[in-house]
């Protein structure tokens, strides 16, 4: 309970000031993929919306298309730099060696496992049985089977959303803060981003690494990269996947 209170306080502080926040978890034995590995990226879910004055997120097809291309390109450049070969499957039928239904099953399975990870690792509902064991989740035999059939070593799931503040929204933010001068402070959220990624080792079926990136600010005009531009997309991919930390057991081993 006290931990929750601390988390809440921290969260409030973050939204009021605005910042970039990342938090990753890894399997105890995790070593970031390096060298000659094959990575399968399943249907990256990228979307860009415009925040209306009233705070509704208006999805934008054109912006989303741009961002999708940018994120894929950034991902490709990053993975090639590490020596990996990558396939980005935009559709389920694009994965060689297995049918679309199998991919759908894996996606649904991964979705519920990811939900568990978010609930127990990020929302503070920590499980006593998993304490001190790093990221201890698996997709099991189905994922191993997929690796065998497709020949891929790792599978990556990626979600990235970017909400851009419209002019109306920014104006409201400005007024909300200016109002403090006469005793009516109503700061409201502007541009913000949420991205997360999970990496599955197809040799063991385990979810070996998970990361969440959140950016946002209540100060009008402040943004942390814009994924509609190649630079912004590269920044997000870097924040999300750039600094993969090895698992605790591996780090201990190295320290010795």
């Amino acid at each position, binding site marked *: 309970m006290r931990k929750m209170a601390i988390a809440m306080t921290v969260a409030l502080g973050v939204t009021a000031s605005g910042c970039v926040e990342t938090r990753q978890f890894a399997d105890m034995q995790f070593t970031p993929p390096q060298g000659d590995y094959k990575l399968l990226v399943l249907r990256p879910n990228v979307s860009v919306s415009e925040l*209306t004055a*009233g705070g509704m997120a208006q*999805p934008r097809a054109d912006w989303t298309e741009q961002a999708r291309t940018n994120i894929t390109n950034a991902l490709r450049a990053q993975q090639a730099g590490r020596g990996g070969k990558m396939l980005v499957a935009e559709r389920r039928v694009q994965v060689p060696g297995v049918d679309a239904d199998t991919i759908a099953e894996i996606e649904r399975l991964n979705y519920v496992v990811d939900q568990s990870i978010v609930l127990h690792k990020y929302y503070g509902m920590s499980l006593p049985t998993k304490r001190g064991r790093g990221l201890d989740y698996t997709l099991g035999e189905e994922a191993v089977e997929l690796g065998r059939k497709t020949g891929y070593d790792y599978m990556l799931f990626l979600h990235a959303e970017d909400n851009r503040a419209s002019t109306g929204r920014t104006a*409201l933010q400005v007024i*909300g803060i200016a*109002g403090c001068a*006469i005793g*009516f402070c109503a700061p409201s959220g502007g541009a913000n981003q949420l991205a997360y990624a999970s990496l599955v080792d197809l040799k063991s079926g385990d979810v070996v690494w998970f990361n969440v990136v959140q950016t946002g600010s209540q100060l009008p005009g402040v943004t942390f990269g814009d994924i509609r531009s190649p630079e912004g997309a590269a920044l997000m991919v870097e924040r999300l996947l750039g600094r993969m930390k090895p698992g605790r057991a591996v780090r201990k081993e190295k320290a010795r």
Partner: protein
Amino acid sequence: MNGLGTSFLSRRALLASGGAATAALATGVASARIPPSSMQALIGPGYRPTEVDEQGLWQQVERVEEEIAGSNLLIKAPGIEDYLRQLIGKVGGPAARDMRIYLVRVPEFNAMMFPTGFTVFFSGLLLRMRNEAQLAGVIAHESAHFLRRHMIRQWRDMKRKSDLFAVGMMALGLGGAGAGVYTGDIARLAQLGTILTLLRYSRTLEAESDAMGARLLAEQGYPPLEMADTWQQLIGELDLSAKYRRKPRERDLSLFSTHPAPESRMKDLRATARELTVPGRIYDNGRARYLQAIAPIRQMLLDDQVKLNDPGATQYIINTLAQDGWNGLLRFYEGENWRLRNRAGDDLRAAQSYAVAVAYPDAPPDAWRWHGLSLIKQGRRPEGRAALTRYLGLQPNAPDAPFIRQMII
């Protein structure tokens, strides 16, 4: 999405925010019936969005359709998909060829249309329809949501109102701060008012769909009155379900529901049907075609319903379907409903249903099983044995066959 079912906004949360009555007076509740002739399609065949907000909405929903099309809840019984496709082609108006229909195995009365023109039907809806006209009526209603561009219209309305609300709140706060008064209560009331007008807009859209759907139905030679009967059936079911649970039917405050209350909806539909019915024209409700089409899944539909543990609703549905004639399948599930409710005397009621069920040629093998077991329980062993022998004859590889066999030695 525009569904048939109830609102997803928590009514309690709304009430808790206070001032409901005042706001209601301000917004007004009454809504007049929409004449079906005024409901023309706003889109033609091959429609694609041209404005950015609608394009954004369409793109988001594409992924949703991919998810539904690959869902393992989809019912893939032979012929059913073709049948539904053929129906939407009939009553889908000018965009009939662009629409897609998916049937998912969810034992509830619901259907929904998505902005890109695909609709999802729950299997519980098929269970409740007495004939093709009733099903076509719901399909026509959902099609009208697409033809009248309801989703984007609702979205734009929400956007406009939330913008106005945000600006209004800011002005109110600043004004209040300047004048030195606390405006929190007025702000809360205004928030409720905004939500109420959103819901009212949605009810208007539902009424539009009812009017246009009834017209599409009548144009294809189905009796338009069947649409009102669908609502009559829903009211009866909700009432009996509540009575069995010894609770009053949830009287949706019509003010807080996104859909018109079933009663007022039914009244409007009856008036619309009278207006649309051409004297002397012959209307066909297509009952025989409907029964033939859903035959491969009808037992599954009944089975799913019985297992919901809602005996009032189940009894109402079975009795409603039986108005067109009893058969072995319906009698068997009537018995199952009593047996699973398991109150005092229910075993005897179930036994009677099973006994009647096996007199019909279409009685499922399980009817013979339960008929036999009921007879043995009543001490009528020889007759019970005969019934169980019949069961094994019909289903020699049943999972419990060895067990039943040793019972009748």
